[in-house]
């Protein structure tokens, strides 16, 4: 029921397309049904009466009226706080799926080795898969510069005060970066094991990178991130001989939080375990590839774009 006038068709939904009372159909107590529009200014109380219609004072939460006291009205919303981000993420996901792009959202604490891992991954995939990268950091373009040195297109997003990337930033970045059809998009999120877990960007998977220098209890300390991720990359395993890091305990903790999480142990520096990681990417890229490629037309479009993606820093509003 419309919380404003009591009509049966109006609702208190907040979707822009349906929230207006610009026009609607409703039935009055005397049985007449009609449609009408009623414009009003924001800030103006929303009562609207018809000369012959009933006059209600009991529609407020109290169910009655006290002279001299305005009735507060309860407006039901029941909307997810992240609904806007989530709908933008779905839009990104649909756009990526349409062009067969396999998108990964790499999350970790700062210093886990994400950028080194990405550089190594791009080098090893050369000739097999095309990779584009969106880099998220509060400041600097250092990471995008490192990626571009490999020859791969990269776009740096500086979040300013922001502690995570969100779907709106990725939408803007995608329009600039324009990843090639049937390619791989790596989104390196802001180094932070907390906030990025909340925000869907439209990726196929979150991949959490944990380095063995960080401590094996991270999955229990930051369970949300490990729960949100499909794959755990345990990085820097070449350093294990020098550390007191219990791999089995760490993985048990991760599975405690997320029984279905996949795990690959690797070292971007020595190359150990990289084959398994590359195979994982190739499987995902294969599955994401467009079912019916549009042939040479898409190819021509791709070639046209190739080389023109230089990437510029995007400076979104701090969130």
């Amino acid at each position, binding site marked *: 029921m419309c919380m*404003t006038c009591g009509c049966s068709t109006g609702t208190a939904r907040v979707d*822009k397309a349906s929230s207006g009372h610009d026009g609607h159909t409703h039935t009055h107590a005397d049985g007449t049904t009609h449609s009408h529009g009623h414009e009003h200014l924001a800030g103006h*109380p929303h009562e609207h009466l018809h000369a012959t219609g009933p006059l209600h004072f009991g529609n407020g*939460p109290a169910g009655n009226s006290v002279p001299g006291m305005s009735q507060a*009205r309860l407006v039901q*919303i*029941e909307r997810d706080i992240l609904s806007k981000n989530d709908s933008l993420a779905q839009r990104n996901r649909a756009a990526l799926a349409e062009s067969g792009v396999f998108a990964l959202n790499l999350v970790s604490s700062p210093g886990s080795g994400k950028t080194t891992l990405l550089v190594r991954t791009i080098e090893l995939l050369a000739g097999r898969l095309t990779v584009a990268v969106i880099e998220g950091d509060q400041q600097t373009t250092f990471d995008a510069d490192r990626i571009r040195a490999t020859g791969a297109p990269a776009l740096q997003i500086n979040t300013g005060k*922001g502690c995570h990337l969100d779907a709106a930033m990725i939408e803007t970045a995608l329009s600039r970066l324009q990843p090639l059809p049937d390619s791989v998009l790596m989104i390196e999120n802001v180094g932070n094991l907390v*906030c990025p877990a909340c925000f869907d960007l439209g990726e196929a998977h979150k991949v959490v990178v944990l380095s063995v220098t960080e401590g094996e209890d991270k999955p229990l300390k930051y369970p949300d991130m490990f729960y949100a991720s499909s794959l755990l990359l345990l990085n820097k395993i070449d350093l294990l001989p020098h550390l007191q890091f219990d791999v089995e305990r760490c993985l048990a903790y991760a599975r405690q939080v997320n029984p279905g999480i996949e795990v690959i142990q690797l070292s971007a520096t020595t190359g150990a375990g990289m084959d398994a990681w590359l195979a994982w990417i190739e499987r995902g890229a294969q599955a994401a590839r467009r079912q019916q490629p549009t042939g040479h037309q898409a190819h021509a479009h791709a070639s046209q774009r190739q080389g023109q993606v230089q990437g510029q820093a995007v400076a979104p509003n701090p969130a």
Partner: protein
Amino acid sequence: MHEMALAESVREIVQETACANGARGVSTVRLEIGRLAQVELDAMRFAFDVVKHGSLAEQARLDIVEVDGTAWCMPCATPVVISQRGQACPQCGSYQLQVTGGDRMRVMDIEIV
């Protein structure tokens, strides 16, 4: 501190709804936050106090209703209450739990004047 971003989303939802309903102001904003929803309530209250200025919710009180985390324990084949992810089943100690509730954060309703 992603609560600031969340609080801005709350303000946006509240402002849209209040405008659509011709409100002069908003007296109460009621949120439902699951205990598994990755939100620090004090940070959320602080952030909302900051972002509500200049909006119709400037004078609004923020009510937060917390909702228990619930999960389905596979070995027990029964629903259980948990306070965080990665917690064992309080009955059998298993970690084979599928979260079923308490992981959402929603704006439930607002009181407008």
